[in-house]
């Protein structure tokens, strides 16, 4: 009689299925099922490949798009910024020379790399996925093992379709109960990072589970997994389930017909087994999570919208210097309520919150008012497909009528590599993922991270406000 195999996590199943061999260093040579590239971190990798006299080993397993540098006002070529145009041309040339499919603006599928992979059906359960971008963790929402890599590792994947990796431990994070109305996936991940810290995930893959995650749509799960890296975890995932399979059915590059049914059987088998062992387990009560806003200079420095900014006495000794630095930079006082903080700019978009469901929710708020005097507000769809869907639903008209700018798809004001930037000491309510010093383009600019609905509400009131007062 065959003994049943020991229960395993999804992470371990995916890792073991993709292990080519153990390297002399003790690291694992891991096969990468899907490689995504963009214009910022790939050109040097292609140059290294040429220097080594190597070819792309599996060109059909790499896909490209342009997102970081693309302007969101006019995407006509050549771009007005010569450096951006040079990066775009280099990517076009590298894709052509190596037989890599490039989703550019003409394809109708251009967008933020972590938005288009899922919407095209490229992102699937059970895969290993790598991309030269730290928010590759987003793809874990499908039950993939997905992580960001640097440019030398992009070269490794182009040349060998493999990476040399050390297996992390797995921490299961269970969010129980049910979210209150007006509380979103963004609030869940900000609360997880607040609880476990920005370095809490170093050395771990995060498995997000529990009733709150099970009830989430794929888009919401992507928001959670997207910010795993902000908690220090290079990779975070949710086990695939019927919601996952329903999302993938009929997607352009997902398996079709009988192949789809075979795929579902394999995907189902990759989910963590009941009784699998975890290095650690953490439990949170979803019902206690409130709309959350960051006040500092890393994504762990946050409070509920009805809370006060901590005082130096509220935090452990070793966090005081960081809190002092954050409050000085942000010009916020310890003990001050976060609600009421005035803003100058409101940004809705990014790989965290630039999907159709994010825009729909923000539009509900936009319908209820007008952007406050002196506030610049912009809405940037995550991809051309998101933009088309939004247009079909009449969302741009709602945003424009309320005084928001409606833009073309791209990374926009998340990261300051295109014309959308803060100026001087501006404060931005942002649906993106990082509130680092200078992140949004002004070396002294300030960022408050929150959900898209909270950003829309802040735009209308001109200050941080609980969006539930408006909805």
């Amino acid at each position, binding site marked *: 009689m065959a003994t049943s195999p020991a229960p395993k996590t999804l992470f371990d199943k995916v890792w073991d299925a993709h292990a080519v061999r153990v390297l002399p260093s003790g690291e694992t040579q891991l096969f990468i099922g899907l490689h995504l590239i963009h214009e910022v971190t790939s050109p040097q990798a292609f140059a290294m490949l040429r220097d080594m006299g190597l070819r792309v080993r599996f060109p059909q397993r790499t896909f490209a798009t342009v997102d970081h540098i693309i302007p969101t006002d006019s995407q006509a070529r050549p771009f007005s910024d010569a450096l951006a145009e040079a*990066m775009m041309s280099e990517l076009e040339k590298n894709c052509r020379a190596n037989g890599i499919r490039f989703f550019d603006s003409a394809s109708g599928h251009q967008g933020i790399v972590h938005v288009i992979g899922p919407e095209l059906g490229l992102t699937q359960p059970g895969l290993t996925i790598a991309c030269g971008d730290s928010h590759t963790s987003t793809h874990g929402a499908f039950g993939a093992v997905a992580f960001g890599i640097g440019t030398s590792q992009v070269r490794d994947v182009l040349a060998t379709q493999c990476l040399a990796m050390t297996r992390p431990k797995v921490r299961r994070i269970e969010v129980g109960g049910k979210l209150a109305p007006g509380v979103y996936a963004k609030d869940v991940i900000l609360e997880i990072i607040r609880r476990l810290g920005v370095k809490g995930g170093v050395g771990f893959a995060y498995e997000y589970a529990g009733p709150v995650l099970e009830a989430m749509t794929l888009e919401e799960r992507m928001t959670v997994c997207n910010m795993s890296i902000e908690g220090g975890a290079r990779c975070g995932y949710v086990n695939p389930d019927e919601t996952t399979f329903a999302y993938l059915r009929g997607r352009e590059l997902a398996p079709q017909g009988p*192949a789809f049914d075979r795929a579902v059987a394999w995907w189902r088998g990759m989910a963590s087994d009941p009784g699998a062992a975890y290095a650690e387990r953490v439990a949170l009560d979803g019902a206690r999570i409130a709309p959350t806003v960051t006040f500092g200079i890393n994504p762990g420095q946050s409070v509920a919208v009805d809370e006060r900014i901590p005082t130096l006495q509220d935090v452990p000794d070793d966090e005081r210097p960081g809190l002092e630095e954050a409050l000085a930079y942000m010009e916020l006082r310890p003990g001050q309520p976060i609600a009421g903080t005035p803003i100058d700019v409101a940004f809705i978009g990014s790989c965290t919150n630039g999907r159709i469901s994010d825009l729909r929710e923000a539009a509900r708020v936009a319908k209820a008012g007008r952007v406050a005097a002196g506030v610049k507000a912009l809405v940037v769809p995550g991809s051309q497909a998101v933009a088309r869907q939004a247009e079909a639903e009449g969302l741009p008209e709602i945003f424009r009528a309320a005084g928001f700018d409606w833009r073309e798809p791209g990374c926009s004001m998340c990261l300051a590599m295109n014309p959308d930037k803060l100026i001087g000491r501006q404060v931005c309510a942002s649906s993106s993922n990082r509130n680092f010093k200078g992140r949004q383009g002004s070396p002294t600019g300030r960022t408050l991270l929150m959900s898209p609905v909270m950003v829309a509400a802040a735009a209308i009131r001109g200050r941080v406000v609980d969006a539930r007062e408006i909805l």
Partner: protein
Amino acid sequence: MARIERIAARACVVRGDDIDTDRIIPARFMKGVTFEGLGEHAFEDDRAQAKGDHPFDKAQHRGAAILVVGRNFGCGSSREHAPQALMRAGFRAFVGGSFAEIFFGNCTSLGLPCVTLAAPDLAKLMDAVEIDPGHEVVVDLLAQTVTSRAGVMRLQMPDGARKTLVEGTWNATAVLLEAGDAIEATARRLPYVSAFSA
């Protein structure tokens, strides 16, 4: 590939936890198709705000090749531009409380060791370097020690990365290529590679 066994040089301390890669190299300097010229922009915005008081601008740290940092150094963006900028600014090793994983991997790929010390040791090393910036600090990956005026300290480094550095196999492409057809064999075992064809 060079074996990275021992780095002996003057050091420079940048204090603070959670220093992210946007601070190490602001995104506006990533516009370009090469890594050239990044060295002069390392920590540019922090330096401007410190008005000459940033460690990188102090004369006594000129020529330092070991950077001593706090916890979670290099968090945030995966940009290899960050270690590239520090390497091009002359740094060949990092000693810290802890490192963000992608930054750590990027450094290893460039032959730059990131080693950690226990908190009390790190505090002593930081003080020693600030008191006497001119003295030589030795990061020894074979003996697994950091030696300075503060004494001989035991360093920590994941064994896999340490081995690739001391054995000179840190450029992973060459090592990964040695797997040969085993790569294709692995691909054939994965049903999605053939699009779940029957």
